[in-house]
């Protein structure tokens, strides 16, 4: 398994995930730097992501949407706070409105991506996600539950139709 470590700290609203890959740092950097590669893994197969903007430099923005099975679109944005190719990215990830503009009503989270050489070859990738407040987590949970409800309802519809 490529995931080697997960640290969750509810007290500090932070999660750190470490994974190891056989590919060198320069190659792993590409999965973040190339939006076409990013699209292959950011969203799940049922909600694939499409990046319409990806300006990877400090102060730059990325904009994306994820398309659900029914054609529903969920829009998001990143703001890159720090970019040090090919080792580190600090970004803020949030929800966007129909026009792709940040939705101030919705929570955002901070992410730090670090790529390091692994002894003996390969790359160690660590992503640290931090939620700015307990309220933002509450909001996300409420939204997730709503989404889960919709998905469950969809399945019931499918069963009834069959």
């Amino acid at each position: 398994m490529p995931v080697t470590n997960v640290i969750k700290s509810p007290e500090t609203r932070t999660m750190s995930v470490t994974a190891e890959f056989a590919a060198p740092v320069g190659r792993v950097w590409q999965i973040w730097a190339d939006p076409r590669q990013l699209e292959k893994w950011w969203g799940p197969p049922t909600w694939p992501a499409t990046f319409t903007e990806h300006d990877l430099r400090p102060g730059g923005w990325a904009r994306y949407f994820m398309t659900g099975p029914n054609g529903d679109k969920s829009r998001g944005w990143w703001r890159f706070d720090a970019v040090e190719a090919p080792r580190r990215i600090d970004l803020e990830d949030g929800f966007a409105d129909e026009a792709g503009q940040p939705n101030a009503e919705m929570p955002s989270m901070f992410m730090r991506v670090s790529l390091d050489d692994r002894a003996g070859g390969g790359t160690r990738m660590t992503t640290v996600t931090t939620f700015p407040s307990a309220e933002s987590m509450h909001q996300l949970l409420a939204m997730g539950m709503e989404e889960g409800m919709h998905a469950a309802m969809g399945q019931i519809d499918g069963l009834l139709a069959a």
Partner: protein
Amino acid sequence: MVVEQIDNERADRLLHALSDATRRDIIRRAIDGEHSVSALARAYPMSFAAVQKHVAVLETAGLVSKRKRGREILVRTEIAALRLAAQVLDQLEAVWRDRISRIDALLEEPETQSEGER
């Protein structure tokens, strides 16, 4: 990042609050409902003021909340926030485990295929 500094301070307060056996016991007692500081004080071989001080440390760390009822001060453990945070982090862990297995698959692909297409 400023957020991280705030989080470190919070973590320090939390660890300090949890480092004392009496304070940990107060948290356990006040999980099932409100306890008055005077009732808590009777449970420990120490002064009312000393217990009050412990409660203040716990309150600063966000582990208990206080409210007044008449002349009494009632203490309650605030676990709801922590439990909720743990739930969100569990969901996020699942999201990242899925992402990393997709990244792993992507990295296995021949490089010519993944670069410069479209």
